[in-house]
Structure formats: structure tokens, C-alpha cells
């Protein structure tokens, strides 16, 4: 379960304080597929980064499966991002000069384990995302949709409980967007992975189980 309690987040831009999140309180249960929506500047991505321990709230608490994220140091948050959370970004964020297989097992390598030990798992994920034909291709040579599939497979390699997706279809056309959303939905239903996505797209909200709408930093 993910709990965000009394979350405030303030940024200082050009000497002025901007309150991006104002007293956010949300709970996301295991296995949910939640879409966080709202206009630009409503604080959606900021909330997502807080849930992923990429940033820290100005005040408030985020508790994931009983763990208070604010009490973790850099090593612990890194481990959290490696093992308990998978990230999917709008611009894929692959390592361009690594192949599909190499990108997928990267979190394993960062965990200090041998990639060879995860060969079977990697094969399973490559099959899941439908990239068997391009497994030896480097990231730079893949299409947008293919890169996003690799990003999803990478997010799953360490069997995380949660996937956090920041505008996963923001850079894709409608056909590829549908493919990606169906894949995320499949992962949510078949593997029980909790998915929290930030999205502008009304169509993608339909793939989820719940919507949280933000406006001016508050849940509406």
C-alpha cells in the first residue's frame, strides 16, 4: 500500500516560492491501476517523483508498504528504486548504446548480481513485451514504442511491487499508445503489480481502475 499523508511541496523559482502540492492525502492499495490526471502545473509529476523517492516533500510523509521514505538515505532510496519500484518515463530513458537485453538487466547489474543469472527472467520479459525480434538491437535503433516496451520490461526485472509511469504514452502515436496501455493493463491484471501513471490522455485513464485528479496542487 502507498500512503501519502499531508504532503506539501514547495519550489523556489526565481526567488519566489511556488506551492506545487498542497496538503495531498492519498492511499493506493496493492494491485490498483491509478491514473493521476490534471492540467499542466497541477503537480502530477511532482507527486509521482515523491512516490518514487526521486524527490522529497517539503513536509508530510510518504509510506510505502510500511516504509517511511523520508527516513531513507541515498543508499536506501537507490535500493528502493531498484527493487521495489519500477520507473517508466515519457522519453524512455534507455541507455542508447546498450542492447534491448542489456537495458533490461541493468537494474540487476546495479544490484551487484550477475546478468547471466537473470537470463531466463529477461527472456520471459522480452516475450511479454513482444520484442523477441529485436533483442540484440541497441536502444538508439528502436522505435518509440519499442523503446517504451524495453523501459517497461526493465521496470519489471526485479519484480517490483509498484510501477510508476510518467506520461508513458506522451511521446507515442495512438496505435502505439494503445499497445503500451494494454501491456500495462496486462501487467497489472496478471502480475498484480500496482501501477501509478501520470497522464494527460483521457483514453489511457480508461485502462486504469481509479483516477486521482489534481488541480492547483490539491486532489479534487
Amino acid at each position: 500500500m502507498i500512503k501519502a499523508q499531508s504532503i506539501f511541496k514547495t519550489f523556489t523559482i526565481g526567488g519566489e516560492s511556488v506551492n506545487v502540492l498542497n496538503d495531498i492525502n492519498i492511499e493506493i492499495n496493492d494491485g490498483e491501476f491509478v491514473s493521476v490526471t490534471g492540467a499542466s502545473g497541477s503537480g502530477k509529476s511532482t507527486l509521482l517523483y515523491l512516490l518514487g523517492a526521486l524527490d522529497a516533500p517539503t513536509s508530510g510523509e510518504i509510506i510505502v508498504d510500511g516504509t517511511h521514505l523520508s527516513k531513507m538515505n541515498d543508499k536506501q532510496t537507490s535500493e528502493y528504486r531498484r527493487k521495489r519500484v519500477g520507473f517508466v518515463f515519457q522519453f524512455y530513458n534507455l541507455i542508447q548504446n546498450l542492447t534491448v537485453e542489456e537495458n533490461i538487466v541493468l537494474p540487476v547489474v546495479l544490484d551487484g548480481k550477475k546478468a547471466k543469472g537473470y537470463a531466463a527472467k529477461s527472456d520471459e520479459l522480452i516475450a511479454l513485451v513482444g520484442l523477441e525480434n529485436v533483442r540484440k538491437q541497441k536502444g538508439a535503433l528502436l522505435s518509440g514504442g519499442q523503446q517504451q516496451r524495453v523501459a517497461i520490461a526493465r521496470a519489471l526485472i526485479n519484480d517490483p511491487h509498484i510501477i510508476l509511469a510518467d506520461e508513458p504514452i506522451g511521446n507515442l502515436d495512438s496505435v502505439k499508445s494503445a499497445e503500451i496501455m494494454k501491456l500495462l493493463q496486462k501487467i497489472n491484471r496478471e502480475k498484480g503489480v500496482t501501477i501509478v501513471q501520470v497522464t494527460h490522455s483521457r483514453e489511457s485513464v480508461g485502462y486504469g481502475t481509479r483516477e486521482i485528479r489534481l488541480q492547483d496542487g490539491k486532489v479534487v
Partner: protein
Amino acid sequence: MSIVIKHIWRNIKEKKLMSALIILSLAISGALLFVALSIADVLDTVADSEFQSVTTVFLLIFVVTSFMSVFVVFSSFKYVMALRVKTLGTLRSIGADKKRCGNLLLLESVVYGLISAVFAAAAGIVLLLILGKALSGGTAALVISPTYILITVLFCLLLSPICAYLPVRASEKYSVKELILQTHRIKEKKRLPVLLVGLALTAIGVLLVLINALKYEEWAVYCSLFVSLAGFVLCVGPLVHYFMALLGKVFSNNFTVRNMRENRSHNTIAVLLAIAVAVVFMVNSANAILIGATDKSFALYNYDIHISTKTNDAIYSAAEVAQVGGVSGITAADGIYYQSEADAGGHIPVMNLYGMSLSKMNAYFNLTTEEEITAQDAKTILLSRDYLEREKLAKGDTITVGNAEFEIAGIIKEMFNSGNVGVLSEGDFEELYGVSRYTLIAAKSDIPDAARNALRAEGFQTAATVADMLARIKSINADLFTTVNYIIVLSTTAGVFGVLNNLLIAFASRKRERALLRSIGMSKRQSAKTILVEALITGLTGGSLGLVGGLLLTAVIPAVFLVFEFPVKSVPLSPAAITLCIICSAAICLLASLISLISNSKLNVIQTLREEIL
């Protein structure tokens, strides 16, 4: 191969120019270190005492070139880190901690070091072979020490991560979010403290030279050179920045000049050029001193033919001296005693100790004493002024030479044989060294070349004209300094790569700006003009600052020469050299900007604006 190594190797291959620059710079330094360590062993196979100081020369060249290499490699790694920001963001987002990311980047630098080490060792061996042959007239044998190879390899392996360390640590300051979103901003360094520290170091370095008490200490000279160079390198970055800011204010109506103020890449180029120009200027000033001093020194010989053995053995009898005198073309001949490196008790050795009467000295050498001396008493010695100054002796003092004491009876004014000359009477010399045969025969002639040939035909195979000797010394100096200049040119080539690289970075970083300007009406020609003006300003700035630095560093040269027991009174300044430095800097920048000009002419405005938005 592990994924990490594959990733690093592919990174290196992707940026070929950058990688070549880093490897070349490290390899040049490594090769020079190997040569500096090994050259003495190679020249020992020839047993020629003329080359005792070569190791020191090459160590100094190594230190100077390393400064340039360090700067080039450091600024290259700063750019590499900038390129790796996106990768770092990805890795941090999927769970890599700061330490792991930092280690990955340092590992990349170690791989560069490893590749450079191979090239450094190979280039070092080739350079050693060439130098050894050049300096010994082709007789030296190649001696390769595994220990020196290992030191060279370790040097490259260590220098690379040392240069990368600060940029890597700087990248760890950014938060994960900043890295992922690439919203990190490079914090402006505090320039004024760096400038003040740099100025202080430069002043200390130069002052160390001027402080008399320490002037003759080798350690002080090396320290002063190192500290001066370090100070200059620290100063030049802030000075470039302030200079560009000043230009921007003076020419505030000029868009191009105003824009250069915060352009880091152009500032880096100017710094690179400044260091290169300073180093080249300093080395060439040293070369000019050596050439001038050699000419002056040989002008003090008042005879044409010199006969001695290579090891200065005392073998020439009076009969042989007479025989020389009787050879066709010889107008006068005399035997002279000579001892090199005469032990002087608690003082530095008298490197050139002659045993001759005053009349012989007046006849065969253009040497004069400060006070006229008509006769030299027993147990007295004449010494060069430079030697007395260095050893804090004066006329009337006593000095122990060999196992006897001599009173200093006269001061030789001229700077002859590095200013380390002593003259004993013939009787004193004979008693001191127990010799009765002369070490050298000095002869005068009408036609030196013919006389030399005639003497050789008589069996005096070592007969050489003084002109021959001068030519040989000049040739050795020329070989040495040609080699030095080749090395400086190699290092400068690495610097030119750096200039080219940074100009391309400058262009790439402002691609969007150029596309924007084009979209609102700037023509291709106007855009090209801005590139050329920026290159010209950068070149002139770098050249001018480098010249200032070079002129400051030439203050250290007299002290460096003193280490080789070569007193230098003044450093000649050539207006031609000064002009050439500035012109070359500007020319290098203009030529290197050609690639940017070509890229600019092919700029796709729409594509660029779209890409940058994404």
C-alpha cells in the same frame, strides 16, 4: 564482457574525437616521462659527459607538457560528464546510488588511462630510440627498462582518473530529479578567489627565483617552475572570463561579443591557447638563450685548432706540442693543462680548471681579469665571477682545490664555459695532479681547415677546428631543442584538437539559439560571421594572455639554466616571436572554426527547434 565494460567501450567509440584527444594528451605525457627516465641510461652507453643534464631537461619538459595535458584531459572529462548526465539520470532512476554512478565514470577514465598507457609506452620507446641516436650521433644503444615502462603505465593509469575526479564529484551534487529532467545547472565557480590564489602562486614562483639565497638551489628552481606554472594555469581561467566580460561591456552594442561573456567553451579554448602559447614562448626563449650563449662562449677562444682526447687525458708531451707547431699552416701552438670537475672541497667543483701561464691565457683565450694581473703567484687561482658569486667567495679568500689551498688572486670577467672556470699556474697544476704531459694542445693557423687536415695526417686524429666544435655543440643543441619543439608541437596538436573539440561543443550547445536567430531573420552569412568573430576573439584573447604568461615564466628561465650551471644574464625578447604567438593563436581558432562553419551552413532550422523542444 560485462555490460558495464561494454557500455564504457561503446561510449569511447561513439565520441572518437574526444576520446582521441584524451588518449593523445595522456600518451604524450607518459611518453615524455619514459624518455626522461630512460635517456640517461641510453646515453651512458656512449660515455659522453656532455649529456649529464639531459635527464633534467626532459624531466622539465615532462612537467611543462603534463600541465597542458592535465588541462586538456580535465576539460575533456568535464565535457564527457556533461554528456553522461542523461545516462546518470537513467541509472539513478533505476536504482544506482551516487557512489556506483561515480565509480562507473571513474572506471571509464581508467579505461582511457589503460589505452593511453599502451600508446605512451610504445611512443616512449620510439622517441627514446630517435633521441638517443640524434644526441649521440647514432652510436647510442637502446636500453629499455621494465621498471620505467611500469612507471609510465602507472602514470597514465593514475593521471586519467585524477583528471576525471573533480568533474565526477561535481556530477554527484545534482539530485536524481535534476539529472533525469536535465534541469541541473552548473554552479558558477567563485573566480576571484581562484584568481587571487593563482596570482599569489605565480608571484611566489617568480620571487623564489629572485631570492638570492635560494637562487642556486636545484630544489628551489624546480619548485619555482612548478609553482609558477600552477599559478599561471589557475589564473588564466578567471582572467579570460573577466576579459571577455570587459569586452562584452565595452562592445555592449555588438551581439556577438556580448554573447561570448558566458560562453564556457570559448573560455576553455582561450585558456588552452594561453597555456600552450606560454609554454611554447618559454621554450623558445630558452632556445634563443642557449644559441646566443654558445656563440658568445666560443668567441672567447683565441685559437683555431683544438687537440685533445675525448676523456681529457694528459698525454701530450712537449715534443708533440713542438711537432704540432711545426706542421704546415700552424702559426703558433702551446700545450695547456686541463681538468674537468676539479674537486673544490666544500664548494661546487670547478668544472673547467686550466693550468696555464697568464701569457698563454692572454694568447689563446680572450679572457680578462677584473683587475689587471701581470703575474700569477704560486698557490693562487683565478676564478670566474659567476663561480665566485654562486659560492659567495671573493678575491683574497682561500679555496681548496684537490688537496691544496689556493688564494683567489683574480676574477675572470667573461662568462666562459658556463661561468665555471678556474686558472692555476702550470707549476701548481703539475704539483696538484702529478702530471707533466699536457691535456690539450691549442694552435693558431692561417687556414684552420687545411691545418686540421694536415695535423690529422701527422697522426693527431683528434684535431678539430674550434669552428667544428662550435658547429657540433650547436648541432647538439639544435637536435635537443628541435626534439623539444617537436614535443611541444605534439602537445600543441593535442591542444589544437582540444580547440577543435571545444569549438564544436560551443556550436552544439548554441544550436538552438542559432536556429532561433535564423528563424527570426538572421542570414546564413551573418550567422557565419558570428562564428568567425567568436573564433578570432577567442584566439586573440588566448594568445595575448599566453604571451603575458610566457613573459612572466621567462623570468624563471635564468634560474633553470643555473641548475645546469649556465648563468644567464638576460632573456632576449623577439618582437617577431611575440607577434607570431598572437597570430598563430588567432589562426588556429579560425582554422578550427571551419568545421563549425560547415555545420552551420547545413543547419536545419525546423529540425533543430523541434529536437530542442523535445
